[in-house]
């Protein structure tokens, strides 16, 4: 059989719509993961043993159970307890929770890597705990974590394809529709695979740039 991509041309707008949905879910999930990951990292590095244990359990659970199982748990489970939300919202929530577990691990190691002397300097100058966390700990930990966080977010992009299983027509979901309409699944999924790879490659370049930008003043030497 011939490898013919031209038949896909007229489906490009439809696929782009799916890509746009993927972009939205990923952006929201990244934000959600960051917020959740930050809170959990704060809990895990806090002095309270209960918070410590609780956050460790959360990370352990959501890192060791397949995302699709988590997704079904929310998608089929939430209506059961009277929460009716659409597939998009469910997907964003599930991705944020799963992503939050990985994100918190990254941020936590960023926090643990901070020179304790810097924290002590902030303490003795009378700053409140919350101020130290916001103004000292987080900015330093996040700057140091750009690259590993980037890997987590790239994984989140790849994970978002699984949302197609709960009827969300993001990029993979749209491609499924196009594949069945054109009877050209090989071409469709091949292009899709390359598109995801290109997308993650592009994002990893952006992350590298962001890393260099945020750490531009941390290199030894003159201005």
């Amino acid at each position, binding site marked *: 059989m011939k490898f013919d991509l031209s038949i896909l041309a007229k489906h490009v707008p439809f696929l782009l719509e799916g890509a746009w949905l993927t972009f939205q879910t990923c952006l929201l999930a990244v934000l959600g993961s960051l917020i959740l990951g930050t809170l959990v990292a704060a809990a895990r590095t806090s002095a309270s043993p209960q918070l410590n244990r609780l956050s460790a359990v959360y990370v352990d659970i959501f890192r060791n159970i397949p995302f699709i199982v988590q997704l079904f748990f929310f998608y089929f489970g939430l209506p059961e307890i009277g929460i009716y939300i659409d597939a998009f919202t469910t997907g964003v929530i599930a991705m944020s929770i799963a992503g939050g577990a990985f994100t918190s691990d990254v941020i936590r190691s960023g926090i643990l890597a901070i*020179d304790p*002397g*810097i924290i*002590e*300097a*902030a*303490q*003795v*100058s*009378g*700053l*409140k705990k919350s*101020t130290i966390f916001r*103004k*000292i700990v987080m*900015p*330093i930990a996040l*700057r140091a974590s750009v690259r590993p966080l980037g890997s987590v977010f790239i994984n989140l992009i790849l994970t978002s394809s699984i949302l197609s299983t709960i009827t969300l027509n993001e990029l993979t979901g749209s491609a499924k529709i196009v594949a069945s309409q054109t009877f050209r699944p090989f071409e469709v999924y091949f292009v899709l695979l390359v598109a995801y790879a290109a997308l993650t490659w592009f994002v990893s370049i952006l992350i590298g740039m962001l890393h260099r930008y945020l750490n531009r*003043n*941390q*290199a*030894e*030497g*003159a*201005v």
Partner: protein
Amino acid sequence: MISIAGLRKSFGAAIVLNGIDLEIRQGEVVSVLGSSGSGKSTLIRCINGLEKIDAGKITVDNFDVSKPRELSEARKRSGTVFQLFNLYPHMTAVQNVALAPVEVLKVPRKQAEAEARELLRSVGLSERADAYPAQLSGGQRQRVGICRALAMKPSYLLLDEVTSALDPEMTAEVLSILANLAKGGTTMVFVTHEIEFARSISTRIAFLDKGQMIADLPTKEFFSDKGMALPRVAQFLSKMRKD
């Protein structure tokens, strides 16, 4: 006044400070001397509340540092300068200096930064005010560290071997700033191995030996027969002079 009475501090089984009594009044410059491991750093860290004390009482202007509520008041009154600077790496010199005034004293940011610039100028750093710590030399970093402590207008300055991470040239530039501060009447508790410098700026010398304060004398007396009469002090001074 910083008042230390019956201070005891141990790490696990090791008693690091044992029965320390010390009073530091406004305007005094007290140098804390003693060999390595004698507990000098620990003493400083007890005063600014970085270590929990096991027994005794430390007050800064009558605020008890072991009481969480009073600790923040005590900390407002003392500024600490660290051996390894401990600057905030993600902030410029000005931001390092202005942070605590803005956050703790609620000084408007504009004003705090203007004051920070003025402080940095006074230590010869006006050109480097917007540089980040990584872009500064060791001596410059420590000068920023001193400004950061001074920005809170503390009644007391606690300094723990603030020049020991610096080469001689940078040491000289930092010491001259401290000498000026001493002359200007800033109260200081000064841990150092720079004996001659301690002698030139301090009003009193406290000598720690294995966690005990075996001498607390006016500088002149410490470096006279009275100090030399104490075998540990004599030993320490002769060793330091040889080095």
